[in-house]
């Protein structure tokens, strides 16, 4: 909800000569009880005048001004934005100035209300009109929004559109790295990282980037093993190539380190399960690290069972999930070994 600024300088529309011939149109909403609050009067008057102009389809400068005032009072009203676009087109307006206008609206909005589809869609329409020249400005704009809320979904969506439609990929990976340095838990930044690595025309694609990306990811995991995002990112790097995931010594090694440290090991155990179901042959150290986490001193027991028992204990909210994995991983692992022609080996 927008916080309206006290507009002591505002002249009511009914007193402005340039709107003298406009007959305001009230919202047809049913019976009208009393209106106790003064700023609702301002709002109501502005919308009544807007409706008059809208119904008359008047695409003039004063129409533009009305949409400006209506938007400032309520940036969520999509009909006003749409009419504004019609007026801008009719007036052949300066699109750079329009970006200035949107900047102003966003700045004037209380925290949380730039999460409004209308503003972003309007921005995109304006930028589309400007073409590739707008790329730098739009990347800067989203950067500003993200500096206040680094997970702002609309800003990220806009930024992705800008990169693909208007270009500007050069510094994007560096930008992701900066954001992750600020907050290694920022899932949006991890997502953007994947976006850049897989889609940037300036990088070599996932194949070329994988090794360096794995190293970065593993470092992030070591910093905070409880961080969900890099674990998923790691799996993403090996999408469609689980053999390579299983064979990558960095992956097994990071699991071992975390399990040995006995701290924040839930995701490490979960990764171990994933490895096991794809045919991973755990070393003795890994086995011992797992047994070391278990109360029941389960030496020599089925590794999958032990891992899942630990997880059911330390992550009880998802106990059913871990129970399910306990049942299914051995079957998946057996299938994998069979596919590799390695039957007879046990876990």
């Amino acid at each position, binding site marked *: *909800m*927008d916080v309206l600024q006290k507009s002591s300088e505002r002249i009511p529309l009914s007193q402005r000569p340039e709107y003298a011939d406009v007959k305001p*149109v009230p*919202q*047809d*909403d*049913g019976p*009208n*009880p*009393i209106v106790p*609050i003064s*700023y*609702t009067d301002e*709002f*109501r008057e502005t*919308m009544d005048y807007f*409706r008059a102009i*809208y*119904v008359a389809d008047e695409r003039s400068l004063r129409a533009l001004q009305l949409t400006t005032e209506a938007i400032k009072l*309520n940036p*969520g*009203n*999509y*009909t006003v934005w*749409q009419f504004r*676009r019609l007026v801008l087109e009719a007036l052949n307006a300066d699109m750079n100035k329009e970006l200035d206008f949107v900047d102003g609206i966003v700045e004037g909005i209380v925290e949380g209300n730039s999460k409004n*589809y209308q503003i972003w*869609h309007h921005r*995109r*329409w304006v930028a589309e009109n400007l073409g590739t020249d707008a790329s730098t400005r739009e990347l800067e704009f989203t950067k500003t929004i993200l500096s206040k809320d680094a*997970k702002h*979904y609309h800003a*990220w*969506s806009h930024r*992705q*559109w800008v990169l693909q439609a208007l270009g500007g990929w050069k510094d994007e990976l560096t930008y992701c790295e900066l954001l992750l340095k600020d907050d290694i*838990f*920022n*899932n*949006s930044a991890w*997502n953007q990282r*994947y*976006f850049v690595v*897989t*889609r940037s025309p300036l990088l070599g694609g996932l194949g070329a980037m994988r090794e360096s990306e794995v190293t970065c990811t593993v470092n992030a995991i070591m910093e905070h093993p409880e*961080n*969900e*995002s890099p674990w*998923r*990112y790691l*799996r*993403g790097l090996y*999408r469609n190539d689980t053999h390579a995931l299983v064979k990558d010594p960095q992956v097994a090694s990071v699991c071992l380190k975390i399990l040995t440290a006995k701290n924040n090991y839930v995701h490490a155990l979960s990764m171990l399960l994933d490895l096991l179901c794809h045919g991973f042959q755990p070393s003795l150290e890994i086995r011992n690290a797992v047994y070391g986490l278990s109360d029941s001193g389960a030496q020599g027991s089925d590794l999958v069972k032990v891992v899942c028992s630990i997880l059911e204990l330390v992550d*009880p*909210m*998802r*106990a*059913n*999930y871990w129970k*399910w994995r306990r049942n299914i991983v051995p079957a998946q692992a057996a299938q994998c070994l069979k596919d590799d022609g390695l039957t007879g080996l046990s876990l």
Partner: protein
Amino acid sequence: MGELAVEKHVKFILTIEKEKDSFESVVMEHIRLNGAYWALTTLDILGKLNTVDQDEVVSWMMQCQHESGGFGGNIGHDPHLLYTLSAIQVLALFDKIDALDIDKVSNYIAGLQNNDGSFSGDMWGEIDTRFSCVAILSLALLKRLDKINVEKAVNYIVSCKNLDGGFGCTPGAESHAGQIFCCVAALAVTGSLHHVDKDLLGWWLCERQVKSGGLNGRPEKLPDVCYSWWVLSSLIMIDRVHWIDKEKLIKFILDCQDKENGGISDQPEDAVDVFHTYFGVAGLSLLEYPGLKAIDPAYALPVDVVNRIFFGR
């Protein structure tokens, strides 16, 4: 554990609907149709739909329809897919879908499908998987799915699938529980759930449950009652709801009630609104909280309403 303050919530909703000049009502006037859907569906789940003047609502709503067949968010507002779905859903609640010129509405919706299978929200061209969902649910309820290219629609949604099994608003966009609901519901309704990696997505979804028992929408974000709907319905549609702790979630939702004045908020102690009241009640229904009507996880309408549409009385 607390209880659901049904009478208070009903009173809250009926008051909101009457207070057309409150500040909230006035600033939200352009999405009043959405508000009507949230309010009325909640009332129906609570067994109190009959407290509303059906004719008044329907007659107001039909005035929101345009020549094109689409509905605007209120009288005098431009048509958009979002409000068109809300209109269809409200008419479904009242068993009045036949008040519509079904061909006209479905032509409006079908006309918004793009070449790549995606849907624009309206003539201005914003594309988002939310609109794919809304278009598909609308046409399914109208029994006119044949008016669009379903295969292309499905392919577009699948192109928005991410490495974590989730879905974003466009290809490459971050997985988000709201978008996931939209994609999974659309795939469910078109018989295309085989495109979903249910185990992978189920795990991502069950990881949304945080210590308080509430659900967030993305990793490392705060829980919010509305995710009780989006995450939960998605889990139900892919058959993995047993992977979360239902009791803890019920407790979280109940803690978000304003037991004195009615209504449910996004988090405990925050201000209530009709949006979160709907999602809280709908979430509790999915969790089989006693005394509530069952709700369909894909259509977001009571099951008896959906059955009436697809299987007759």
